[in-house]
């Protein structure tokens, strides 16, 4: 196993790169996007716009277009939305080519702690996804836009986000995965 994973790291198409190499790749990608399109990597702005598009048939296009947030964050195939679509297909291509694509309903770490109930896992995913998105919009960005893109520029907003997010995550994980006293 160890031999296999070491030889795999050497090839660009291998299933798993050392995380440092992936980090260098994201760093170099940041150089390119700062120069070529002057548009730092980010994810949640476009998800906020898409939410407006999804709500349009439910609450009516007028209610969306007069909303204080969606008024200036209109759903369209702009740079950010196309970047998001690209992210999806990049991960898809990578997982297919490396033959690591696998349907996963309950990850092993969750299974060990909370058991095989899909309802439990899906409920946590929905609540967690909603909190992450709400928090990211309030903070001005997520791990990508705020943590990496603002963090690499040494912006106060980026480092404040990183420190608070990490602390909050540590506390949440400590509560969720505490060992039960019997």
């Amino acid at each position: 196993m160890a031999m296999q994973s070491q030889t795999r790291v050497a090839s660009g198409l291998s299933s798993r790169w050392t995380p440092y190499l992936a980090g260098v790749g994201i760093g170099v990608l940041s150089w390119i996007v700062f120069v070529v399109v002057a548009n730092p990597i980010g994810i949640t702005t476009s998800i906020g716009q898409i939410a407006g598009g999804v709500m349009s048939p439910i609450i009516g296009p007028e209610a969306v277009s007069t909303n204080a947030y969606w008024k200036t964050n209109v759903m369209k195939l702009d740079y950010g939305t196309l970047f998001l679509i690209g992210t999806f297909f990049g991960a898809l291509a990578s997982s297919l080519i490396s033959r690591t694509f696998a349907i996963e309903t309950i990850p092993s770490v969750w299974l060990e702690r909370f058991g095989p109930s899909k309802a439990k896992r899906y409920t946590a995913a929905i609540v967690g996804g909603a909190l992450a998105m709400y928090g990211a919009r309030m903070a001005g960005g997520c791990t990508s836009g705020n943590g990496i893109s603002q963090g690499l520029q040494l912006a106060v907003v980026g480092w404040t986000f990183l420190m608070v997010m990490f602390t909050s995550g540590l506390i949440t994980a400590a509560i969720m995965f505490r060992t039960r006293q019997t």
Partner: protein
Amino acid sequence: MFPIKGEFALILAVIFGFAFGWLLQRGKVTSYNVIVNQFRFRDFTVLKVMMTAIIVGGIGVLILKDVGLAKLHIRDANMLGTIVGAAIFGVGMVLYGYCPGTGVAAVATGSVHALVGMVGMLIGAVLYAFSFSWVKANILSVWALGKVTLPQLWGVSPWVLYGALTVGAGLLFYWVEKQKK
């Protein structure tokens, strides 16, 4: 020539996004187990990817800025919003097991629960849009420092901070790699 705008920039958006998704998957941060175990200090993959990206990206972007090829894109530091938002985000990230970017990428690797969580992300975005007027007036306006950087705030050279980050990350990861043996 740069920056490129217009339709060609939209094609580039797909290519750059593709590269980002590829890198996230190769870095294994599309895995629930990897992300959640970072917050339990059982796996340091997330910090390795992020810190390397920040240091390599940051030093490169600073050089590109100094030679006039790039501009910085600093966002407003609305401190109350950033602190409350990041605190909510941290809870959400551990419950979901992904952040928004890695969640989208994880759906593409076959994670059904990441897809279910995307519904939650849309709900969160809708709730934010509905509460935006209130949040803007009562939270985003509090302790707003503007587009400020740590070097400006502390009056030090950015190179000092990148140096400190590099040494700090180097020591941390040297220790982490040593634990594995």
